[in-house]
């Protein structure tokens, strides 16, 4: 049952998370373009913002409908955990609804359909509301997760139940801080890669050249900064939190079995838990000690220091983490190369590089997912770190068969959703940015918007 519950939650959350990555990332850039349009008066930014808003909207729909099950799966799959920690991690769930989802959904309606009904600054503010809503939503759910990673703000009562002692400690869990920065930075970086990939596609197929060049320039400059901040400070400082509060996870991520001072960083290698060694390793000496504790001589505790039943699944944690870090490094190389080509004024003509950008599209999503996988698998065997094991948190009265059955149902539904999503998004990309608003309703609004502006100036 534990396995079925975990697989179902993992599948539904990983599929769902693909879409918030996209909407958090694109949402920021749409807000940026709208702002540029209003401040510079350049209509090309408006056209670009509306194009990306169409891509955003389709992803948003899938994100919303696949997000709803998660809110209820805490109860359906993890009833014992919900009863145990509901008054603690649960503090953040209604706040996500109250402070984030209402803002997002209410203002998205206003942003997409309010053109012509509200002034342009209010319309802009509605777009900003959507962006702020999605970023806040990310914070609350990261903070809820942080309580499972590093429980704070509680005391154990006579029955061993955690009771809230500090709401503020739960809300501003220190573990959530850099984790959140890293997560958001990862989503923004994915947004930059999506824009770059589609712009590269247009340039390679010699369509919408002006739009593509503007977009690509923005994407490469932003991506250059974001790929660096992904590693430092956000990734680096989150890593120190893990080192300080979850040393067993750190050891699994690095494939470090034996405790040692001046521990090396394993760039490559295959962890073998039977012999407790890393096979065929490529090491950089002393770097792990420095990264984790800020000193080249610091001692890093290895997995062997823990009883076997407190080890996370080493291979999965190790590979997920290394995939994330490896891809993150490649992103830096790609974006620096892009910035160099931009500086040399060769970016738009370097077809080989445009191919690289276009084909890089899926990898930021893989890196984001792999990062969460390392975080969540590395937390095992704990559901709430040090307090409640995953096996203790599962629903006692749901049969594994029920969960497998509904897992298959989710797989079927999500496969269809994925196909629909790709089909509709491909249509928007095929239609291109200049197609404007396709359809009568939005077109009518646009006309009335223009009329309203005309009246004002007259």
């Amino acid at each position: 049952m534990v396995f079925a519950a975990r697989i179902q939650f993992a599948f539904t959350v990983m599929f769902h998370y693909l879409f918030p990555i996209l909407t958090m990332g694109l949402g920021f850039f749409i807000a940026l373009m709208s702002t540029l349009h209003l401040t510079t008066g350049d209509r090309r930014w408006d056209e670009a913002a509306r194009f990306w808003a169409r891509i955003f909207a389709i992803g948003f729909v899938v994100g919303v409908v696949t997000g709803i099950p998660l809110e209820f799966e805490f109860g359906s799959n993890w009833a014992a955990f919900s009863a145990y920690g509901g008054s603690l991690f649960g503090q953040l769930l209604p706040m996500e609804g109250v402070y984030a989802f209402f803002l997002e959904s209410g203002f998205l309606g206003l942003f997409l359909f309010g053109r012509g009904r509200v002034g342009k600054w209010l319309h802009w503010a509605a777009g900003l509301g959507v962006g702020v809503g999605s970023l806040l939503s990310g914070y609350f759910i990261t903070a809820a997760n942080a309580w499972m990673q590093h429980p704070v703000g509680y005391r154990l009562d006579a029955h061993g139940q955690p009771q809230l002692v500090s709401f503020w400690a739960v809300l501003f869990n220190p573990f959530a801080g850099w984790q959140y920065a890293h997560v958001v930075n990862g989503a923004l970086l994915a947004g930059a890669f999506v824009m770059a990939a589609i712009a590269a596609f247009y340039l390679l197929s010699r369509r919408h050249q002006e739009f593509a060049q503007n977009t690509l320039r923005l994407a490469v400059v932003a991506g250059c900064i974001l790929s660096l901040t992904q590693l430092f400070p956000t990734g680096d400082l989150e890593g120190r939190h893990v080192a300080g509060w979850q040393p067993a996870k750190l050891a699994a991520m690095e494939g470090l079995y034996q405790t040692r001072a001046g521990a090396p960083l394993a760039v490559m290698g295959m962890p073998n838990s039977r012999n407790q060694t890393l096979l065929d390793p490529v090491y950089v000496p002393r770097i792990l000690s420095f990264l984790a504790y800020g000193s080249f001589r610091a001692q890093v505790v290895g997995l062997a220091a823990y009883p076997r039943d407190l080890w996370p699944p080493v291979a999965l944690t190790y590979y997920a983490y290394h995939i994330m870090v490896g891809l993150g490094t490649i992103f830096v190389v790609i974006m620096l190369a892009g910035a160099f080509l931009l500086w040399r004024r060769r970016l738009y003509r370097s077809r080989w590089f445009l191919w690289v950008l276009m084909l890089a599209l899926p990898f930021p999503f893989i890196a984001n997912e792999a990062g969460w996988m390392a975080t969540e698998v590395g937390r095992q065997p704990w559901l709430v770190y040090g307090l409640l094991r995953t096996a203790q948190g599962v629903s006692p009265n749901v049969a594994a068969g029920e969960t497998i059955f509904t897992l298959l149902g989710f797989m079927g539904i999500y496969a269809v959703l994925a196909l629909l999503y790709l089909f509709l998004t491909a249509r928007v990309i095929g239609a291109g940015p200049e197609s404007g608003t396709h359809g009568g309703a939005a077109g009518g609004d646009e006309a009335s918007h223009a009329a309203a502006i005309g009246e004002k100036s007259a």
Partner: protein
Amino acid sequence: MNQLWFWWLAGMFAVYALLDGYDLGVGAIYLWLPREGDSRGFALAAIGPVWNGNEVWLIAAGGLLVVSFPRVYALGFSGFYLALMLVLWFLILRGVAIEFRGQLAQPLWSDFWDAGFGVASLALALLLGVALGNLVRGLPIAGGSFQGSFALLLNPYALLVGLLSLALLAWHGANYLRFKTDPPLQTRAREYSRRLYLATLFLAVVVTIYTYIAGYIGDFGSHPLFWIFPLVTLAGLALAAAAGRRRDLAAFYASMLVIAGLLGSAAATVFPNLLRSTLGSGDSLTIYNAASSPLALKAAFIANAIGLLAVIAYTYYIHRIFRGKVQTPGYHV
């Protein structure tokens, strides 16, 4: 504090029923709307910009349930695992249908999503009523876990409440279309509103009598204030009769009163239980034995009440911006 939380949660679900209720109701009568004059397009345009915000009330209410009465959330959603998954799948189908229908101007495409939207809305309006019926009726709970089967949830009483919920929300949706649209859709909505009002009236009487005879009715005697809910229901039913065929907005307010009154009555019936056990009152989850600590309740109350006031303010504002009749059919981004 525990009583306050009970009524707050009841209020959250009631607001959800009032708001998402009208777009569920529009969905419930959607398949019977005529094709001529693009009535379906106008109906979708009427709910398009607001349905998603309406649905967030359910999400927020679910979140508030986790933090206030975690044992109820845990038992409720794991105990009714398959029923919950069914609801979730219908919610997915419905959301996707509304948003994807307008993406492609192609008859087969829109027919498919029309069917999805209509069927999912019908099913949800029914299932939410079935869930409420089971809450009022009580469930076989012992030792903190659900002892019954999926089939038990489909008992006659719960199904009857489900039908009432379907008629009531469909009526509410028709009333919404009455004041949001022009003829010919408005004319059709007025006709449906009249018939669905009669269906609601009939089913409400039947359910009330059944509830009374079966002894599910709560302790109205020692809480005279509870009588306010049946009175609100009656006021709504009377207002609907007075509104007649012409006063469309009054009809919408009437169905709002009826929904609020009936949900309030249901809440009064189960109070102070949250999940009433049919196996013995000691096994019921009440607002006292299933609650979080006083500090957790207080913190969550303050943290969310402030935010909700802001939500109410801007939700009202957004509804004002989209006030008036729908001018153009269809709904697409």
